[in-house]
């Protein structure tokens, strides 16, 4: 039985049998890996803490017939502050679920691991957790190969916003074309895939998009935008993610109810089912 060591974050934990857990890890070395943690639900189990959802640890896994087996585990970061703030804990669960939908088993992508860890750290520390979620969504889309082009119109190539832009201009994010639309091509009322963006909302998304994985300290300090700007940015990215994974993330409604309680009702598509 081949054994190997990985550093990973528990995306999901499902009770199995009397005392076992099946965990889904996102690991730096191997991407997503599922494994069984035997006895992890017993109070004195040495695996219990490291096999809890949203825990980063070092895991020794042994190859099994259908599932690998967790033989040893050591917690590296349990993100304890998340457990004291309901909104941030709900946000962290959303980050884990979102990543889980963009990855497949055993396909290593170390930057995605770095992103998830950064996202969880941001959920603990960011001044505005909602901004941290938006930044994470932009980076996740980019690393998955779907990053929207927010600097020029995807139809005519014109830089957005123009130099002489007005604060009242209406832009859009074309979900289908994967990028911004200038004022001439944006038609949020005419096309279902055009998510409306005001000048401020576009500026906010461009500002977030300019911060790479190495800038999480700066992201943590970005102040929250106005409620209207935050709502438009949220809707544009949510619709982009929905388009890419062909469904809604289950944890989104609960997170939204806590992070942005005054959100407009048009958040989930009646045409698409929840991703299983």
């Amino acid at each position, binding site marked *: 039985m081949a054994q190997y060591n990985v550093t990973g974050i528990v995306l999901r934990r499902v009770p199995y049998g009397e005392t076992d857990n099946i965990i889904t890890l996102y690991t730096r070395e191997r991407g997503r890996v599922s494994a069984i943690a035997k006895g992890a639900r017993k109070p004195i189990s040495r695996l219990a803490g490291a096999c809890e959802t949203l825990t980063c640890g070092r895991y020794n896994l042994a190859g099994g017939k259908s599932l690998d087996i967790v033989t040893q585990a050591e917690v590296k970061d349990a993100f304890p502050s998340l457990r004291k703030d309901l909104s941030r804990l709900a946000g962290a*669960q959303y980050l884990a679920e979102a990543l889980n939908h963009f990855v497949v088993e055993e396909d290593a992508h170390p930057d995605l691991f770095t992103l998830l860890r950064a996202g969880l750290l941001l959920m603990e520390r960011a001044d505005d957790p909602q901004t941290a979620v938006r930044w994470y969504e932009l980076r996740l889309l980019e690393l998955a190969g779907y990053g929207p082009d927010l600097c020029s119109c995807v139809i005519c190539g014109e830089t957005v916003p123009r130099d002489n832009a007005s604060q009242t201009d209406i832009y859009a994010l074309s979900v289908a074309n994967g990028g911004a639309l200038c004022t001439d091509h944006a038609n949020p009322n005419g096309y279902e895939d055009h998510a409306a963006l005001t000048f401020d909302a576009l500026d906010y998304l461009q500002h977030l998009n300019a911060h790479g994985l190495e800038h999480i300290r700066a992201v943590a300090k970005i102040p929250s935008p106005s409620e209207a700007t935050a709502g438009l940015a949220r809707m544009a990215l949510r619709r982009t993610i929905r388009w890419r994974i062909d469904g809604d993330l289950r944890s989104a409604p609960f997170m939204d109810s806590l992070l942005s309680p005054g959100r407009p009702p048009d958040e989930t598509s009646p045409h698409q089912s929840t991703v299983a």
Partner: protein
Amino acid sequence: MSTHYAKPLARLVGEFEKLPGIGPKSAQRLAFHVLRIPEDEAHALAAAIVDVRTTIKYCRVCGNFTDQDTCFICTDPRRDQSLMCIVAEARDLIAMEKTNEFRGVYHVLQGVISPMEGVGPDRLRIAELQDRLSGGIVREVILATNPTVEGDTTAMYLARNIIKPLDPSIKITRIAHGMPAGGDLDYADQATLISALEWRRELT
């Protein structure tokens, strides 16, 4: 259904296979065991299964399993009605009862908030909890959900979004987290040790 068995036996194996944690081999073992036991024991087993399905229901007050309209805990006059322990499942209530330490009443949520599984607060017995708390009798609520992400999410949600807005004078407490009896400090993880330090008590 396997063709290697006589039809009634295949049916029994098939039914056992539907039980949680029972695979084809275990189902076969159980079915063969049933064939070996005296006939009256087999009848008793079948009757117990039918009986539990027809008589057991949820207590209309707390949500515990009961064969009456109200469970034996809710009808017990010696119970302290001002102290309420909120648990996720009826089996958690039984675990608390086994301690013989708690003399208050319970409220069974019948689940925990699990956003990633699509289980929101609307799927739990929260409306019933609000009804009970608005009576003004309960003075302390003990949140006894598991110290997991889902358990903590549920506890914080109930405290912040349900109980406090309903009656700010209700004392809200959470069961302690930390080192288990018989645990080994050397193997305890960061989160457990942080909890153990936070919830430490003065020795007198």
